[in-house]
């Protein structure tokens, strides 16, 4: 295959891998900017992936699946807020608890309900899955590789969720920086006392932020089980929640840089798939594992202050006590 086609296909794969990552990272953005650590992204996503696939399989409607996915992730988000905001428990512990619990609960319920060894039934057809949309003339455009192939592969040929995720970036930026809610949200993550003094409920704001993160994780999980694949399998998030957390940190808790980080991390993933066993000039075969570990290494380097600096929201992880 010629280089140009290869690059376009690589970028198309990047977009597909980046979508759930971006949704989860934006979910983390809302949660962490309000001062609640988002360790639970992985669990919320996995729970949504299971619920979406189970309901889509049982009802035959992917939209009902999406609703179930969002409802499940929001329920888990509220549990996190109940533990970490209302009862001032350790938010990291709460997140880990949800991640571990859901990792077991999905396959356990799947086995009991569908009896397929911890999976959900194969989703088939357009009704049960989010399928790629083909834009007008996309197939005809392939005849002229430039710019036709870019149109056909990068703009067209994705499912609804991908476009939704893309639209969410400017929307999040607008909400965060241009609305009263966003201002308060950022304030409550930096200085909850000040927000409280202004007569605004810290608890209420944090619940709202965590609920939003639940909604977005719900969409991300639904994407995994009904768009990226056709059904739920054990551990299907495979650390994507943690990777999204890394992308959020790498993007310095801001929407557009977070998008950049997600694309970068997704690109390394797509590249690793492409480079499996391929010998490159000068360096030879690069082990896939090292390319896959790159996002984690980069994030550690960033946190260490060796590549730029990332300053977390000041009040992150600190439960707010009114009386203090």
């Amino acid at each position, binding site marked *: 295959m010629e280089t140009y086609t290869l690059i376009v296909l690589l970028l198309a794969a990047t977009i597909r891998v980046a979508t759930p990552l971006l949704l989860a990272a934006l979910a983390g953005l809302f949660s962490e900017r309000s001062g609640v650590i988002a360790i639970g992204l992985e669990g919320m996503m996995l729970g949504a992936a299971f619920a979406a696939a189970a309901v889509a399989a049982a009802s035959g409607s992917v939209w009902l699946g999406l609703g179930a996915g969002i409802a499940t992730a929001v329920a888990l988000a509220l549990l996190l807020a109940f533990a970490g905001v209302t009862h001032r428990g350790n938010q990291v512990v*709460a997140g880990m608890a949800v991640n571990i619990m859901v990792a077991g609960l999905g396959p356990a319920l799947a086995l009991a309900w569908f009896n397929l060894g911890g999976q959900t039934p194969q989703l088939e057809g357009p009704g049960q899955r989010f399928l790629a949309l083909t834009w007008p003339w996309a197939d005809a455009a392939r005849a002229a590789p430039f710019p036709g192939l870019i149109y056909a592969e990068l703009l067209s040929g994705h499912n609804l969720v991908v476009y939704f995720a893309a639209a969410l970036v400017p929307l999040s930026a607008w909400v965060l920086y241009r609305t009263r809610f966003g201002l308060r949200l950022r304030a409550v993550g930096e200085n909850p006392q000040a927000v409280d003094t202004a007569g605004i409920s810290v608890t209420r704001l944090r619940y709202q932020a965590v609920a939003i993160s639940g909604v977005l994780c719900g969409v991300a999980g639904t994407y995994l089980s009904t768009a990226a694949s056709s059904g739920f399998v054990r551990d299907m998030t495979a650390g994507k929640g943690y990777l999204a957390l890394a992308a959020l940190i790498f993007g310095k808790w801001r929407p557009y840089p977070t998008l950049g980080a997600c694309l970068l991390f997704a690109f390394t993933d797509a590249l690793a798939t492409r480079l499996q066993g391929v010998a490159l000039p000068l360096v030879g075969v690069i082990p896939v594992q090292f390319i896959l570990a790159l996002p984690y290494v980069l994030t550690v380097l960033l946190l260490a202050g060796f590549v730029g600096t990332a300053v977390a929201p000041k009040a992150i992880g600190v439960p707010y006590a009114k009386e203090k």
Partner: protein
Amino acid sequence: MSAPAKLPRWAELGLLPAVNLVAALLLSGVIIRLIGESPWAALKLMADGAFGSQEAVGYTLYYATNFIFTGLAVAVAYHAGLFNIGAEGQAYIGGLGTGLVCLWLGAWPFWLVLPVAILAGAVFGAGWAFIPGWLQARRGSHIVITTIMFNFIASAVMTWLLVNVLIKPGQQSPESREFAAATFMPGLHTLLGKVGLSFTATPLNLAFLLALAASFLVWLLVWRTRWGYALRVAGQNPAAAVYAGILPPRVTIAAMLLSGALAGSLGLNELMGAQHRILLDFPGGAGFVGIAVALMGRNHPVGIFFAAVLFGALMQGGSQLSFDMPRVNRDMVVVIQGLVILFCGALENVFRVPLAALLARFRGGKEEA
């Protein structure tokens, strides 16, 4: 209720964890009911599977050994005010050290291999924990995030090593060759046999006694030495620690080294004692179970021992359960682990406040809430 409600010591160490455990088990029972099985029958099957025979007890304690190591690892870091989520990766890399020693020193007698293997596991595990510890102490990088990242990096490194370097030639699955028999950790049944006691052959091995020894040493170190005092002060109040002449960054690094060394000892049980080779993902989530064990055991070696046995029993009883109740599989055990972490760790204040109020009332309202 400004400060977390105060409980008397016995309630803090015994009653509260028990109440939390009961809550977690009750919710698990609801889930099993939802699945369509009887929770009571499941509980009986699990208890029987975990303690019903010598074999069952052997397996339970063998699993518990892993959890004692990782539970101690999480607890030591916790006393220094650090949340070490990286025990999984530290156990993985530490086991590599132990495994390499067993692969290389196969010709040595066991009593010479053992100290080298212990040291290698500890050094490798501590080395893997050192980087996040150093980054936290010197560069202010959040240790929760860096240890999570290091779990993934450890997994990538180990996969690469097993697939490309350590794999036994002419074999498909990414595993090293088997260790020489001389380096096997002696089974507890053999040791008991030498003193004239008979015990069914199980994977339970000498590493269990090493884990108990490690528990005692941790107790000695954390509660009975100047170093341990510095550790706890720095963990509870870094500002006060500075006034007392303690250097919190140095404590952070030292605590992570000890934590990593403890997690790294998992290989002694899992690889030297049971698997006898290095294989993919041998910690199998024990690093995360360690969080639950430490939380439930109130970060004290005695509590950690009981919590580790409980989780060992869940592991062993869970496999028995999945055997007898086909609709309930081992994933149910993972659910229970998650619920225990939830109730003992994140939701502990839910029961603490009413318990404190209740106990205060019994004492004639002497303790104001």
